[in-house]
Each structure stands twice: as C-alpha cells, then as structure tokens.
C-alpha cells in the first residue's frame, strides 16, 4: 500500500490487482486525465453550460476515484450538484472550483514524482 500526501492509491492498486504494468498505465492515464481537463470545469461553469458540466463531473468522478483524494472527490461531487441546479451559489462555486483546481495540481505533482 502506497500513501502519499495527495494520492491514496488503494483503489488503484485494487483495480490493478497487483499488476505493476497496469499500475503504471493507470498512473500515467490519471496524470493525463487531470492535465487534459485542467480549467475545463471553470470554463463550463462560467459559460453556464450546465448539462455539459454535469457530463464532465460524471466523467471526472471515475477519474478522481483513482486518485483516492477524498477532498478532490467531494469537490467534484459538489460541483456536480451545482451543475444540476444551474450553477447554484456563485460564491460557493468559486470556492469549489478553486479547491478542485488546486488539489488536482497537487495530485499531478505527486504523479510526476512517481513517474519520473
């Protein structure tokens, strides 16, 4: 079991079933997913594209499961609820979006360290 500051890879290790090659593929894929989707959630929120934001959050839920970062997962879920409610409270949304972006960056930094 590997524990990091931002990553909790217990779920990923379960899914990889002890296969290191799979583990590496998943870690690489996680880094790519987080990098590729940087800023997407904020853009969709600012453009009030609520159905697209809902789809994004649904997709991101699967991605963030592999990070094991509970605060990141919860932030995404909060954002998902806001999208279902056409944005919800704007101030709160800003807080959630910042939480999402910062924690994603932290996870990516750790992944970069692991995949060096």
């Amino acid at each position, binding site marked *: 079991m590997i524990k990091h500051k931002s990553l909790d890879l217990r779920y990923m290790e379960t*899914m990889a079933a002890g296969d290191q090659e799979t583990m590496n593929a998943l870690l690489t*894929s996680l880094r790519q997913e987080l990098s590729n989707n940087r800023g997407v959630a904020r853009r969709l929120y600012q453009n009030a594209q609520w159905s697209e934001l809902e789809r994004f959050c649904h997709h991101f839920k699967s*991605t963030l*499961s592999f990070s094991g970062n509970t605060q990141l997962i919860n932030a995404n879920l909060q954002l998902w609820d806001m999208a279902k409610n056409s944005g919800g409270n704007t101030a709160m949304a800003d807080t959630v979006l910042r939480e999402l972006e910062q924690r994603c960056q932290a996870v990516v930094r750790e992944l970069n360290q692991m995949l060096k």
Partner: protein
Amino acid sequence: MRKAPVQGPVRSTLAAQRSVVRVLLIEDDSSYADLVKILLSANPEQECEVTVASTLAEGLRSLEQRLDLDAVLLDLSLPDSTGLDTLLAVLGAFPTINVIVLTGSDDQEQGILAVGAGAQDYLVKGEFEPNQLARVLRFSMERKQILMRLEEAQRIAKIGNWELRPEESYFFASPQLYETLGLDAARDQISYGDLLEEEHPLHILLQHTQNLEDDEEGDSLEFVLNDGSKRHLLLTSKRLEQKDGVPVYIGTLQDTTLQRKAEELQRAQELAEETARVREQVIATVSHELRTPMNAIVGMSHLLAETQMDEEQGQYVTAVQEASQLLLGIINDILLTSSLQNDALQLEEAPFDLTLTVRGIIAMLRPKAEAKGLQLLLDIQPSIPGRILGDKQRISQVLYNVIGNAIKFTDEGEVGIQVTVLEETYSLKVWDTGPGIPPEKQQEIFQPFSRLESSATKQEGTGLGLNITQALVQRMGGEIGLASTLGQGSEFEIVLPLKIVDQSQVPIVPEVDYSPVSEVPADRILLVEDHKMNQIVLKQTLAKKWPDLQVRIASNGAEAKQLLSQEDFDVVLMDIQLPDTDGFTLTQELRSQPDNRNVNTPVLAMTAQAQVANDDRYLEVGMVDFVLKPFNPEELYQKLTQHSLKNNT
C-alpha cells in the same frame, strides 16, 4: 261465501274421439248376430261398423287383418272353442284387444270369470238394450285404454303390482311383475297355492305381509332369475281392511337393478376421487416437508464447500452435494407429478426465443455427452421464428428430460436434436444411436415410476421423467411420439402448437439461463466505455482471467455502432453514460436492426448507479443484466460466463 268450484278441462272419451267404432262380433248364431248388428246400429252414442265371424278361427283371422278394431264381442260357445278357452285364445293372440264376452242367461258365472281372465265386461244375451250395449262398449274401450296405459307405465318404470287375499286364496300380479321376475304372464301364471310353497320365489310375499309392523312397508331384495342373473328388487306391501275386517294386501315389486348399479358406480367414483385427493395431498405435504430440510442441506453443503478443506473432506462434501441434488430432483419430480395430476399446474404464455432455449439446454448437457464420448448434433431450421409464445420453463424441462434420457441410455455414437417448423406447429425431435426400446415397453415408459434398465448401468431417478414430459406436452396442447428399433436407436418427437409473436412489438431480449463454465467464456467481447482508466482496468481484469479473450474497445456510441456492424461479439459490456449518446439508446437501436450480426448478442450495462437493479429500463431496451462500478472482478467473471453467446451455442 263459498267459492264456486273451478271447472278444469274435461277430457273427451276415447269413444267420442272415434268417428266410427269398429266392432268384431264372433258369434256362430247368425240370427243372434243380426240382432246384435241391429242393436249396434241403433247405438245412440256412436256409429258402429260391425264385422261378423262365426268361428274362433275366423275371428282370429279377422283380428290379424284388422288392426283398427275397437272391441270384440265374443260368444264363448263357438263351434271350434268353448268356455274361457275361447277368451284365452283371443287374448293370448291379441293381448291388447278389448273383449266383451257374450254369455247365456244361465251362464253369468262364466261372464264373471271371463272378466277375471281379462275380458273388459260381459253381457247376457237377450238381456240388454241398445243403450246398455253402447254404454258397455264405451266403458270397455275406456277401461281398456286405461289398463293399457297403466301397463305401459309399469313397463317403463319396471314396477309391477300385486294383490293378495289370503282369506280367498287369491293372488293377482300384473304382467310387469312377471316380466320383472323373468317369467311369462300367460305361461307361468302364479296362484295363491304357489305362494304357499317355501321354494317359490314369491313365497316372500306371504312372509312380508305376515310380518308387516306398519300398514305399509318396503324392503330391498336380491332375486336370482332362472337364467342365473341377479336383480335388485324393491318390494312394497300395504294392508287394507275390508268392511268385514278381512285383510287384503296390495303392493308393488320394482326392478331397481339399474338404479343400484348407478349408485354403486357413483359411490365407487366418489371413493376413487377421494382416494386420489387424499393421496395427492399426502404426496404434496410429504414432498414439501422433505424439500425444506433438503434445501438446508444443499445450501449448507455449498457453504461448506467454500471453506478450507483437505482433499478427503472435499470429496465427502462433493458426494453430499451430488446426492442432495439428486434427492431434491426426485422430490421436485414427485411434486410436479402431483400438480399435474391435480390439474394444479399453471402454464405461462410469454414470448421467448426457441432457438436460444434449445441451445441453452444443449449447453447444459454437453459435458455429460462429452464425458461419454458422444457427439451432440443440433439441426435448427433457419425459418424458426425469432420469438414464439409459450411456457419456456416447461418446454426447457421437456427438452432436458428427453435429451438427458437420450444421453443417459446411449453408450456410443450420437444424440441429435432437430427443430423444425410446420404450418401451425413446431417439432422437436431427439434421436439417438442407443440400444432402442422394446416394443412392449414403448407405451409403458410413459407410465409413472417406469424405468428402463440399461445393460451396463443402474439408472438413477424416480422413473417419472417421461411421465412428466408427456403430461406437460399434453397440457401445452401438443403430442409426444416415439419410434424405436432395437439395436439401432430411438427417436422422440414432440409436436407443439406454434404461436408466433409480432416481432415488431417485443424487444428482442436474448435469454440465457444456462451457463456451464468453460475455460474462455467468449471469443470476442466489445467494451463500450469512454473513460480511459476504466478501459485499462477492464482489459487488465479480463486478461488476468482469460488471456486469450479478445477485447474490442469503443470510446463512444459511433465507434460502438461501427464495431457492432463489422465484427461478431459474444457479449457487450455497455457503459450507460457516453459522450455522444447513452447505453440504453445504443442497445435499443441495436435490437431494432434484425440484419445486424449482433442483434442477439447479450448486452450488460455497466453503471455506478445501484438503482438500476430496481429499474426495468435496462431490460426494456434489450439488455440482459448489469455490472456495478466499481467492478467486483468475480461478479464480472460470473456474469460474462453466464451471458456469453458462446456458452449458449
């Protein structure tokens, strides 16, 4: 004030209904005959047509020729016959004729005797006027008619009447009574003296009348006729007292043989029905009480098998499991037989895929066939409708029984299954290269608890399989036939009514109940999943279990459609949320394309939403099952194995 009586309808007399009364006068004295003719012509009530015969023989000839005579005026003293013999001769030949006897003035006694012997009345020559003659004629005709009706009624009801006057040594019995006793009224006349003899069959009348406790009684008797046949009789007796206190006894004797037989049959039938009901209740109750603990044995042995055991313990547990499964099967057979006999089995009628059903049964039984080195051949007519109506479970059971038997009793060669469609029926044929069934056993094997022993092995089971099979087929409106030749094999044919489903109305849901576990459940599966990381996990999870399994991946609906149209898949894992569509819509579109090579390929939903289990939508669109995310690998393996098309062909 008293009400005036209401007059009912008045029946017209028989004489009044005749336009002409036809009379035969048998009288040898021609002058007297002329006188009678004059008297008859002066009949104030009726016109008479008179025919005269001067001898008995001539009179009998007239009677033969003239069936419409209303009365015979008969002189007892004729050249060719005298006295009562004359009357008896006429009545013997024509028992229903109405006879009025003409006697001499010094011979009235004979007239009275004549009435007792069957004449309707008598007239003393020279002592009657036209009115009197007319009245006697009319009364005799009416009385004769009444007596004839009474006799006919007795004949129909098989009831005769009798009269006994012990003080006068008199006994009378109606013709029907004689008939009931198998006697001839004319030939076997019974007198009072006959009754006194203890051996006489009607001596019982004397005993009955002497032992009357009430004025009227009835008794059932068993009577043996001269020809040895038995009759059940109902004897009734009634005591009447005349003015002088002398008792007279009257009664009836009725043949109740038919009623008694009907009652016995009714009782026997009720007893048989009650016995059958009790038997079935006992079987059902006992079987149910057996099945409950059996389920516990099966369940616990299954749990035990999943614990850690050494090899020896494992063998013991396996033996317990096999024996308990066998016993459970026997109990279920008995319960099903009971349901069929009690007419308690409800058949379903729902759309199902016959081809897949047959394939499923074959897949279940293939290991048994292969273990014996038998080839299992399948020939399904291409024109079999996609969906038909019927009770899939019972049809499966029928197929399982028949194909299972073929495999059980065939030691080498082949077992074949052929499915064909006829005009309004479809046929399921199962043939084998086994030893065949002797002709004398070919009906017997469908009887309950009938078992055919094979030469090599002792067969297990209740012997109810074919009996259940036949009963199920018949309940479904079909027939099962058998053709078999010793040393060559047997062929069972089941023909069932064909009820086609409107293919456009029903979503095609692949039905796969039977899942023998094979090494690789599929040749190729399609994974429709847009999330890259889920794709990696799934591929890796499947590769770990089945390295040779080919997995194609579609990241969106468009890619999935393309792959489904180009390649054959044994099963599809379908994510619900896709970038360009959703899994439900994609599946529904697939099912609506009969020409798509994967139209019948099983589709499993992949979803994180546990509530899919309670939502029939996935079934409505044509999916067969679901897998929850995050995946449980064992659940994924089990469901792929269960639903894969490869496992069911």
